[in-house]
Structure formats: structure tokens, C-alpha cells
């Protein structure tokens, strides 16, 4: 435990500056009047200019500044996907999935949900949706069925699937980095409940859309006549990409044993694929990295670092402790459900960025004698991390603005001439969110508090 954490919180000008920057920045991010990345960059600059953090702290100190683990993991995975995309492999997978459904509209919906969830466990949710949704719209046009169920299901399945692994969704990447959790920790603790959740989700959509989706037999032929092999544009690059992806996933699985951080594994994969791909100038591949997202993270980390430094996070953690009285089961449940509803309405990235230091601070108060891994991995604390991940990721399904994937499908539906209103999305999203968080609640209770495994 660091000695400064026991210092009493000093309410001075710096405290109020940090608070004001945080409140105004988050208010503007929620209002969506100005692009969130611009707010984050300017807010971060203010944190340093006004002396809340020194530049050295913002850029180089893990506790207060930019979490480069998250940044390099995101950038590296984006580079790998950007190189893979032109091979046509994603078109191949999507068309193959549609044909697997034999042109039956509901079967295709269900298969797309599973494929989206699995892809999303290994890729960013937004990337997955951008790779699946266009094919979804094509198939819906071919079958002359309403594309809205397919689009909504794409988003929901990607949010569920992304929860399963360390790299599936940014909140998990952030939690893993702060809590020093490994890839396999997520596989052991989150993947099982996500598999169950997906089964429950498939049963739910059978009830919701099972009967309403119908097509004519001659339209099914349109799908069956599509030849997915035509999608593969560059078989050589595809083989290289799959090889590197295999290396990266194997690296993630073993990163604990190798004593390498996930960001290192991903960076190695990105570098290797860049070299193997035969690309002469990486300009395009690098330009297509989603820099606005990356800079949003960087700015956000600095703004939150300012809050941690002045003790604002510590005050919040005192409040949580006062409510839960140190009861860890109650803490897990409060964290899970509060995270779910919070993430349904605000971006789960700033939310988790705030919750991580809060949970660490709370743990320091509960177990003042522990520090480092012994503190972060205290058995009583582990279910709280998993509850945070489950709540924050699954909560994104609640509303049309709960997750970036939702925002994207709503935008695509509108472009395709089918408006999904805020209420319409919520009518499907909110019950599914509550259902999936309920499944997670039972899981956390049963596994960690009853069975204790």
C-alpha cells in the first residue's frame, strides 16, 4: 500500500479544480454536444496545465496516468484486423454462416448471433459489428425480411460475446490491466457464464422473433447460391494472418507463464504480421487505426488520474463502504447492478476507468496490511472484479446509447431506411440486459459465495 493513500483528503483549490474538470468533462461527454475525444484531450491538458498532475505523472506513472497496456493492446489488435480485412475472410465467415442457416430467417438470426458473439470475444465489439452488419443487411434484403431484428441482435450478441474474454471488450482490457488479471483468468471466470448467457439469449430471441420472420422459398435460393469462396481475395495473406492470429491467441493463453503482458503479445503479433504481409508502406494500415478512440482513452486516463490524486475517488469509495459495510457479497451485487444500469446510459469506458481505482481504494481500506498482487487478487475481492466486468459489459445492452456497437447498428438501420427509436431499442435491450445480468447474479452468487470455487 502506498503511503500517500492513508493521508487525509485535503480539500483545497486543486481538489476543486480536479472535481470541476471531471464533472464538466463527463457532463459534456454524456451530452454528446462536442465529440468526446476532443473533450478528453482538452480535459487532460487542463489537468496538467492547472497543476493537478505533473506531466511526468500523467505520462509515466501507472497509478495516475495513461495506461499504456490498454493503449498498445487496442492499437495492436486494430492493426492486425486492418491487415486481415482485405483478405475477405470476414465476408467469407458471414456468408458461410448465412448458408449454414439454409436460408431460414430465424436460423440465420440465431447463427449470426452465435458467430457475432464468438468473433466479438476476440475482436473489439465495434469491429465485429462493422464486419457482420453489412452482410446481415444484404441477407435481409435477399430474403426480403425486416433487417431490424438482425441488426439489434448483432449489437446485443457482440456485447454479450465481448464479455467472455480479456480482449473482447475495452472494460475487460482496463480491468485486467488495473487488477493484473490474466487472459486465462477471464476464460475460467467469465467464459462459462457467457456461454450460459448466450444459450438463454437464444431462447429469448426464439420467443421474440421466432415466429415473425418469414420468407419465400425462391428467396432462400438467393442465399444458397452465394459462393462464399469468392469472398477470399488474398489467400496468401489470409494464411499469414491466420498464422499470426493463432500465435497471438496462443500468446494470450500463455502470457502469464511467459511473464508477458497482453499488450506485448498483441504488439508482437502486429509487428510480425506487418513484416510478413508484404506491405511496403504501413501508412494505410496505421491510418485506419481508430485514433479518436485511442486518444479518448488517453485523455480519460489523465482526467481520472487527477481525480485519484486529489482523493475524489477515495471519497467515493468511503461512501460505497459505508453502504456495504464491508460485506463482499453485497459489494459484488451493488457493483454488478449499479454498473449495469450506469453502463446502459453512459459510456462504459469512462465508467470502468473510474470504478477501477475506486475498487482498489476500497480494497486498501478493507485490508490495509496487504499490497500489490496479494491485495488485488485477495479471494474476497475477485468476485467484485468479475461483477464489475459482467455489469459494465452486459449493461451496454440496455439502451441504444449503452454501447458503441448499439450506436453503430442504430445508425446503419437509419441509413437503410429503418429507424430504430431509443424506445424501440430499449424495449428489446432492457429486458435482455436484466435477464443476462440476472443470469450473472445467480452465477456469481452460486460460484463464489455458495460453492466457493
Amino acid at each position, binding site marked *: 500500500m502506498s503511503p500517500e493513500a492513508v493521508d487525509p483528503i485535503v480539500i483545497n483549490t486543486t481538489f476543486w479544480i480536479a472535481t470541476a474538470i471531471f464533472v464538466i468533462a463527463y457532463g459534456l461527454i454524456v451530452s454528446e454536444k462536442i465529440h468526446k475525444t476532443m473533450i478528453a484531450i482538452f480535459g487532460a491538458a487542463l489537468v496538467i496545465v492547472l497543476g493537478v498532475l505533473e506531466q511526468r505523472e500523467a505520462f509515466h506513472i501507472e497509478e495516475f496516468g495513461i495506461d499504456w497496456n490498454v493503449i498498445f493492446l487496442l492499437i495492436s489488435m486494430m492493426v492486425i484486423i486492418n491487415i486481415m480485412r482485405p483478405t475477405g475472410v470476414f*465476408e467469407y465467415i458471414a456468408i458461410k454462416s448465412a448458408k449454414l442457416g439454409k436460408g431460414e430467417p430465424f436460423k440465420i438470426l440465431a447463427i449470426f448471433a452465435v458467430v457475432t458473439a464468438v468473433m466479438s470475444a476476440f475482436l473489439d465489439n465495434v469491429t465485429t459489428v462493422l464486419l457482420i*452488419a*453489412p*452482410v446481415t443487411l*444484404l441477407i435481409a*434484403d435477399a430474403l426480403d425480411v425486416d433487417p431490424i431484428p438482425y441488426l439489434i441482435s448483432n449489437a446485443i450478441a457482440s456485447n454479450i460475446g465481448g464479455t467472455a474474454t480479456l480482449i473482447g471488450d475495452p472494460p475487460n482490457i482496463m480491468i485486467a490491466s488495473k487488477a493484473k488479471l490474466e487472459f486465462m483468468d477471464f476464460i475460467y471466470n467469465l467464459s462459462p457464464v457467457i456461454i450460459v448467457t448466450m444459450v438463454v439469449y437464444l431462447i429469448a430471441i426464439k420467443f421474440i422473433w421466432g415466429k415473425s420472420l418469414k420468407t419465400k422459398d425462391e428467396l432462400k435460393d*438467393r442465399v444458397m447460391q*452465394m459462393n462464399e469462396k469468392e469472398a477470399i481475395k488474398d489467400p496468401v495473406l489470409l494464411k499469414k494472418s491466420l498464422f499470426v492470429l493463432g500465435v497471438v491467441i496462443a500468446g494470450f493463453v500463455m502470457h502469464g507463464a511467459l511473464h508477458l503482458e497482453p499488450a506485448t503479445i498483441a504488439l508482437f503479433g502486429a509487428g510480425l504480421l506487418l513484416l510478413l504481409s508484404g506491405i511496403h508502406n504501413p501508412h494505410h494500415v496505421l491510418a485506419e487505426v481508430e485514433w479518436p478512440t485511442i486518444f479518448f482513452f488517453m485523455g480519460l486516463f489523465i482526467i481520472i488520474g487527477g481525480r485519484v490524486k486529489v482523493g475524489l475517488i477515495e471519497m467515493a469509495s468511503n461512501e460505497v463502504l459505508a453502504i456495504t459495510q464491508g460485506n463482499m457479497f453485497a459489494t459484488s451485487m451493488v457493483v454488478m447492478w449499479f454498473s449495469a444500469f450506469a453502463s446502459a446510459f453512459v459510456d462504459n469506458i469512462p465508467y470502468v476507468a473510474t470504478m477501477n481505482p475506486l475498487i482498489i481504494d476500497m480494497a486498501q481500506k478493507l485490508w490495509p496490511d496487504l499490497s500489490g498482487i496479494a491485495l488485488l487478487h485477495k479471494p474476497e475481492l475477485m468476485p467484485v472484479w468479475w461483477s464489475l466486468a459482467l455489469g459494465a459489459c452486459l449493461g451496454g445492452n440496455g439502451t441504444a446509447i449503452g454501447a458503441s456497437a448499439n450506436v453503430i447498428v442504430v445508425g*446503419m438501420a437509419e441509413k*437503410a431506411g429503418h429507424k430504430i427509436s431509443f424506445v424501440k431499442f430499449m424495449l428489446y435491450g432492457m429486458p435482455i440486459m436484466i435477464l443476462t445480468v440476472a443470469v450473472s447474479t445467480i452465477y456469481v452468487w452460486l460460484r463464489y459465495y455458495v460453492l466457493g470455487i
Partner: protein
Amino acid sequence: MKAKELMIPSPEYLHPDDTLRTAVNLLRTARRDEDKLGTKGLPVLDENSKLVGMLSMADILRAVFPFYMGMMELGEFSWDGMVEEVAAKSEDKHVDNVMSKNVITVNEDASLMECIDHMLKNRIKRLPVLNKEGRVVGMLYERDVFFAVTKAMLEKEGGAIE
């Protein structure tokens, strides 16, 4: 040589509320000089005769091209009759939903080089020509610019234009 000397004066135009059916009829039959042949683009003027957009052949193709096909490589997976289906659904769309809204224009006194500058840098083949009040007075086509340029080349050689 100035824009107004090369332009085709007082072109036909469209209204933002026209349906695509009306628009494509005009696009197919609009006059160019004395020949009656399909035109490559028409200016769109609002009720105050202010230029608000351009509707070109490419905009019509874009109107039947689903946006999602631009997001991935899906051309191979389209089916026979797909365009006809979308075209039938699109005929009641309004011109302002389909037209290009960022229109590059030139003043009628603009030099020929300025016109070429706009065409090359913006990769466009036609430029609406505006008078001092900002009204559209004509259209300048790449073809006419081409003839002006080639005329200059051939005259310099001293040879007659064949």
C-alpha cells in the same frame, strides 16, 4: 478564355422536391447544344433560384447502391434483379436525398486555368457557373474545356484544326 465563354448557358435544372422519376426523365432527355442526348449532371435550385446541389448519373447509381455494400466487398453476393428491385423502390425518393450537396462552382469571369484547377483537384467533370449575384447562368463541362485546351495546342503548332 473565361468560364462564361465556354459554358453552356442557362441549363435546365431540378428542384429539391422533385421525385427521382421526374429527375431521371430530365437527365435522360436534357439537351446539350443542339443534340438531344442524356446529360451527365443537372444543377438543383431551390425556390429562390439558389444552387443547393447537383444531381449526376453517379448520384443515380448511388441511389440504387445499398450503403452497406460500400462497407465490405459484397459485390459477388448480389443477385440478378437486385438493382431493379431497389430502383423500383427509389423512384419516389426526392432529389435532395440523393443529390451531391457540396457543389464546387466557378464565377463566370473565372479563368480557364481556375476551372481546370477545380476539375482536377476535386475530380469533377462539370462546374456550375455563377454570375455576380450567385445565380446559376450556365454549366461548364470537361468536354468543352478539353476542346479549348486542344485548340490551343493545335493552333500553337500553326496547323489547322481538322
